[in-house]
């Protein structure tokens, strides 16, 4: 029973985790990209379309990443070179993504999808309990953990990470030191787009292998909230994503077990949990200030 619940939690948490880690890097560089939902849905439709046409799940995943990056490049050009308002541009990106994906996906409605194969890690997957839970997942689940590890290490243990954080904390100083703020941010935005695209592919190729319009159903927005929830720390994103996944899955199990709790209350639990954690985090003002990228959302215009 517990094993079954855990398996469902993993699939529910993975897309949130991947998208949130990408957005975390973007925000650490001082850019707020509200277009996660739009990039994710484009990843979902392109990933599905390519996998369907070529019969290869891996090609689908790669195409989804490319689609997410293409969307984010559009965003990057607008906010970095044309210094457009980040909030408005991000929202427009979401609207564009939802509309465009609907148009592209029209031919794929009602077409059964391609399920990504599970990767069975030899020997370990035979273990009782631990086997199915940890070593019989599809490749993207493992990838999500590699991604978190790489981002956590890269942000805080490498020079590139230091530069990226410097750009996000004080773009004026970083610029004065000779770092190209625009270039660093461009790269970060592309990384965020790639992650969002990948998260989308997870939805349309692994979670529910099919294409339907609007299938992200707000998960991009939850990923955005998770970044704040995690106070811009990668490992906390994992906790956040799994907590969110767990609460929403437990809600369904609790109902099936016929607990006498109103279902509307259970459905709102993940959001209540998010608000609670946000309150707890912001209570510690010093910690919040230390981790929040100081230049988040501020446009950068080099004066010379």
């Amino acid at each position, binding site marked *: 029973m517990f094993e079954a*619940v855990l398996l469902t939690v993993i699939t529910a948490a993975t897309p949130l985790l991947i998208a949130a880690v990408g957005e975390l890097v973007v925000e650490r560089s001082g850019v707020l990209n509200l277009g996660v939902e739009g990039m994710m849905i484009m990843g979902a439709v392109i990933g599905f379309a390519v996998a369907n046409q070529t019969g290869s799940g891996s090609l689908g995943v790669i195409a989804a990443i490319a689609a997410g990056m293409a969307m984010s490049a559009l965003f990057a050009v607008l906010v970095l070179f044309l210094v457009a308002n980040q909030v408005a541009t991000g929202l*427009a990106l979401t609207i564009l993504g939802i509309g465009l994906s609907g148009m592209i996906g029209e031919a794929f*409605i009602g077409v059964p999808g391609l399920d990504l194969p599970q990767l069975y890690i030899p020997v370990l997957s035979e273990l009782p309990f631990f086997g199915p839970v940890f070593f019989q997942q599809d490749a993207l689940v493992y990838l999500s953990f590699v991604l978190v590890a790489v981002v956590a290490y890269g942000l805080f243990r490498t020079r590139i990470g230091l530069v990226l954080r410097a750009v996000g904390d004080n773009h004026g100083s970083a610029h004065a030191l000779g770092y190209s703020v625009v270039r660093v941010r461009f790269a970060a935005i592309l990384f965020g787009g790639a992650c969002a695209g990948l998260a989308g592919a997870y939805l349309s190729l692994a979670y*529910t292998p*099919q294409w339907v319009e609007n299938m992200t159903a707000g*998960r991009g927005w939850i990923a955005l909230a998770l970044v704040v929830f995690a106070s811009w720390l990668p490992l906390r994103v994992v906790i956040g994503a799994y907590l969110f996944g767990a609460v929403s899955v437990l809600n369904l199990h609790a109902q*099936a077990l016929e607990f006498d709790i*109103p279902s*509307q209350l259970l459905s709102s639990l993940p959001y209540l949990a998010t608000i609670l954690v946000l309150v707890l985090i912001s209570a510690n003002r010093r910690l919040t200030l230390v981790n929040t990228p100081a230049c988040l959302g501020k446009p950068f215009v080099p004066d010379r």
Partner: protein
Amino acid sequence: MKSLLKTTVAAFALATLGTAANAADVKACFVYVGPVGDFGWTYQHDQGRLAVEEKFGDKVETAYLESVPEGPDAERAIERFAREGCNVIFTTSFGYMNPTIKVAKKFPDVKFEHATGYKTADNVATYNSKFHQGRYIIGQIAAKQSKTGTAGYIASFPIPEVVAGINAFLLGAQSVNPDFKVKVVWVNTWFDPGKEADAAKALIDQGADIITQHTDSTAPLQVAQERGVHGFGQASDMINFAKDAQYTAIIDDWAPYYIERVQEVLDGNWHTHSSWEGLAEGHVVMAPYTNLPADVVEMAQATEAKIKDGWEPFTGPITKQDGSVAAEDGVRLDDGAILGMNWYVQGIDDKLPE
């Protein structure tokens, strides 16, 4: 920024407006609550629209707006259609009821058709289908086929139509196996493939070997296929998603109704009414019975024939969950009682959310 907005607007216009500017005798317009690509509720309405186009050719022009939120936006969308010269406007969600009535007052010459509502006027008709008839049949199949004696029911919102569906399903099941159990999970959404899939997994993990749903995506059926249990398609035939898992599907077929009403507008003899038809009139259609032994198919077909002959699944004896009598033996619930159903029948352990 400006250019991006323009592309967005252009993409939207392309995605949402399927108009062919032509001089036709009648212009029929449709307002949808979801995307035409949901492969469920809205998809089926759009199939109906396409059937109208095919039937009348150049004589009728159609247009639609999709993903129109229920509320003030709906009023704007409906009014726009009325101003654009639509002769008949179909508004296809319960939440469009008041906006439809409001706009209809301003445009007495335009005919309005509102799906699933209960307010009519001289130029506003309502239409709905007896989906619960299909649910009675799938309840019988579930009870015959289930090994665990438990079905999982993924429900959207506690509105009468959904509650009546659950009751009809259980009444059907009880007619075969009086001890049959149904586990209900409310997901509080019409459409979220991920959440619906999770709900299906939770139900299967807890012993349900039949999955049925009153939500719009194909995800639960896909999970059933993956896990080797069975289920039923919702709104459209979903056999492509679950070749081994789907027993049948309850298909909403709006085409006959739309063709009939557009014909009446063409002929000039359209009148307001409240249409509520089911299997007999072909507004609800059962998909082919698959993956079933012959005797179960026979039983299902017999029930289908009985309903087509006029028998109503909500015929007594029906006992409510609290033990009180809803209908005496042989007494049939009237339409109002079914359309406003807010109680469970006996045998459901779930507590109805209020």
